[in-house]
């Protein structure tokens, strides 16, 4: 549906040049919800704007619905108004001099749809986003969430094959953000519309996407489905950016069959073996806070049934409602643990932590594995 090949985009600024996008390639299947995830300045918005035709890349090729809309080699550049896309902007960009209805009808009117049909289609779309009662309001009288819906209705009213979303939820408050997130996913599923979504919010990306591309400094470091990126990332960038993590530097001691043992500051951790793990290699063991089980116990350091047992003391805790976070001092570091809140656990308590080898992520030691990518 969408194919991007070796995209390059440079911006000239006062201080010199910025390589915003450095050879980005990916492809998106029909009906997929695809997310570009990364910190601000990583080039994700630039990629989206290149897809929309709002930026003209210097090199590469972009194909949408089997049609080449940009190619440096073939010297093709289709302007945005000929790409037949829907787009929601970060600031919504709903036009303040038009009513809700006029905003939504606009894409149909510029495509010279008959006024009768404009009325019914715009009406239907407004109903879909729940704005039927505000049709004739001026958009400047609307709340942020309502403006967001107008922008969304405007983007889908012409039934485009591709929907582009540039951080559409970032200007909403937390509660509304969650609600809109659910509605957005529902809408996308119902229409089966191919969607490209840009965000810096990893939670949003995990919740919405079929596939996520993690970007950093103008390149895609890893593409995968949310589950794989969370439990089995290939790139340290992904591991760091998605989810919370405890990181323990270590050395591979021994490998046997499907398992390996890594010597770390908190003890010997048994992990699932990965192909590239050999004895003596420097690695980083990454353990999610919720992978630990936390128990109030006086048992010493050692192993129980082959599991590592780490003894420590609760230094700090945060009660978050459904879960609680504990910072446990052990083995010279502080380990963040997330679990069901337990009334019996207090600051200063001695505890022990256990861990399932399946839940440990092992990556090459920091600095060596930055070039690892998964396409």
């Amino acid at each position: 549906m969408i194919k991007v090949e070796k995209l390059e985009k440079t911006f000239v600024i006062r201080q010199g040049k910025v390589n915003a996008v450095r050879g980005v390639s990916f492809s998106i299947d029909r009906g997929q919800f695809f997310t570009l995830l990364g910190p601000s300045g990583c080039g994700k918005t630039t990629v989206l704007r290149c897809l929309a035709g709002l930026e003209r890349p210097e090199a590469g090729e972009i194909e949408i619905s089997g049609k080449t809309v940009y190619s440096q080699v073939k010297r093709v550049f289709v302007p945005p108004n000929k790409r037949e896309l829907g787009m929601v902007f970060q600031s919504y960009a709903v036009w303040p001099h038009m009513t809700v209805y006029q905003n939504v009808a606009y894409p149909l009117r510029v495509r010279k749809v008959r006024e009768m049909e404009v009325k019914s289609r715009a009406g239907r779309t407004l109903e879909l986003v729940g704005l039927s009662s505000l049709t004739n309001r001026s958009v400047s009288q609307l709340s942020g969430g309502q403006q967001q819906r107008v922008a969304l209705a405007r983007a889908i009213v012409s039934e485009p094959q591709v929907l582009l979303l540039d951080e559409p939820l970032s200007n909403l408050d937390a509660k509304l953000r969650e609600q809109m997130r659910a509605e957005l996913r529902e809408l996308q599923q119902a229409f089966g519309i191919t969607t490209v979504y840009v965000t810096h919010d990893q939670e949003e990306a995990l919740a919405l996407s079929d596939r996520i591309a993690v970007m950093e400094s103008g390149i895609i470091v890893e593409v995968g489905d949310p589950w794989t990126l969370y439990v089995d990332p290939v790139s340290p960038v992904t591991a760091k950016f998605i989810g919370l993590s405890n990181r323990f530097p270590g050395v591979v001691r021994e490998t046997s069959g499907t398992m390996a043992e890594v010597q770390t500051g908190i003890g010997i951790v048994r992990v699932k073996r990965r192909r590239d793990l050999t004895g003596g290699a420097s690695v980083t063991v990454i353990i999610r806070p919720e992978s630990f089980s936390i128990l109030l116990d006086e048992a010493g350091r050692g192993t129980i049934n082959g599991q590592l047992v780490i003894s420590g003391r609760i230094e700090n805790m945060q009660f978050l409602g459904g879960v609680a976070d504990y910072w446990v001092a052990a083995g010279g570091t502080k380990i963040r643990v997330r679990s069901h809140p337990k009334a019996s656990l207090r600051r200063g308590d001695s505890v022990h932590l256990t861990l399932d080898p399946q839940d440990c992520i092992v990556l090459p030691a920091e600095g060596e594995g930055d070039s690892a990518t998964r396409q």
Partner: protein
Amino acid sequence: MSAGQRIVFGALVLVVAYLVLVPIAALVLGSLRDQPPGFPGAFTLRNFAEVVHTPRTLVLLRQSFIFAATASLIAFALGTFLAWIVERTNTPGTNLIFLATVLPLYAPTVLLTLAWTLLLNPNSGAINVILKQLLGSTSPLFNIYSMGGMVWVRSLLDVPLAFLWMSPIFRTMDVQYEEAAHVCGASRTRVFLDITLPLATPAVVATLLITFVAAIEDLAVPLFIGIPGKAFVLSSEIFLATMSVPSNINVASAYGIILLLVTIAAMSLYLRLTAHSERFVTVTGKGYRAKQTDLGLFKYATLVGAVVLLFVVALVPTLILLWTAFAPFSQIPTLGGLTKLTIKNFLDLFRLSMTKRALMDSALLGVSTGILVMIMTALIAWLLTRTRTKGRNLIDSLATLPLAVPGIVVGVGLLWVYLPLRIPIYATLWILLIAYVTRFIPYGLRILKPAFNQLHPELEEAAQVAGASWGRVFRSVSLPLILPAILSGLIFVFVRAFRELPSSMFLTHLRTEVFSVTLYNMWQSGQVEMAAALGVLSLVILGGVTLFVRILVPRW
């Protein structure tokens, strides 16, 4: 509010109300009297009857409208073109274009007018003479002394104003509005018609209104060009009627009322448009990125266009002024003439006590007006932004009202107030000071109100908590922090007071002729070279003072 504050602000409100309302009231009363100021007389409607019954009134109104409307449209077109080039394209040299466009704002209005009479005088104007030689024609191609000439000069005077008003529109309009329409399938032309134009409309109308008012209340162009060309407008008619012997100041006052009604209508429409600008807020902050159109090779065409325009607007008039100021006698610029250039005109100027005094007086008036206006408006701005005093809006309106009052109206109004008084204010510098402070209070307020709005109240509260009294807080925290704004306001008001012409023409006397009036009198009596030299001197003084104050401006 403490008792001290009450006294300070009560006094302030009385002073502002006196300054602003008294001349207007006096003008209204004067237009209803049958005798000039200082003579016992009776109330009458005769003056208005005369105005209504003279066919000339309609002619004057029509001429004034044609003059102001055409000038503001041309200025708008040129200023918008320059603003678009500077803010939205990748044309090279935009910094220079910006400077060259804005700098003429600091030059006295009378200078550009004088320069164009030197260029386009039908007999001796440099452009006319050169073109006559080139084309071998016998009659002059241009005659500055006509309605066309007035419109031409007035539009060039307003180009910087239109530029400054349109630049922010181009700079701050969120390009996402336009991009959204583009993605929706609209072509570039449709995006411009459907999105850009409607969003910019309030700003466009506001710009047109501001330049319209500037033109219709102008006295310099009608005086230098209109009167010799017999192209009369309301402002020149008011001047002629007041200055004629015997004076017809009563009818002039009636005309003044008409002019005042026109400007008040235009300015209130303008204030209404800009007050509700939040409906058309075009800056969203987040997600905003300035976008420049890549013009490709066409950028050199826009560069040439801008340079040619600025050459005409700023450079040619400056050059002719310099040439004339250093020329031994009136002659058109030639290479051969370069060797004969002399500083004789400047020496002649300094031999006249009149010119020395005019420059000194104008500088003195400029500085005192600047200081008085900034002190008063600093207090008013503080009152408006920091307190919830009842009647705040009234004070705001009072201090903004002079924006809509033409300088001529202030001049005639003050004649009515001070001519009959026993205390010697008329024919002194004091009456000019009163006129200038009245006229320029709004400018000070418009600069200081945003400055106070940006200053977080907690900065002042911290000083209060630390134990400082209100006066102490104002002196030691508020004032120093808005000092940069105060100083730039000071320059702004200084320049405007130094070059003031419309009210000065009515209020100066033989011994109190200020700069613009002196220059006009020299020009009118045929001492063109000395007038040009005086103009060059004024540029040196204005430039020097502006630079000096800029150096003083602290940066936090």
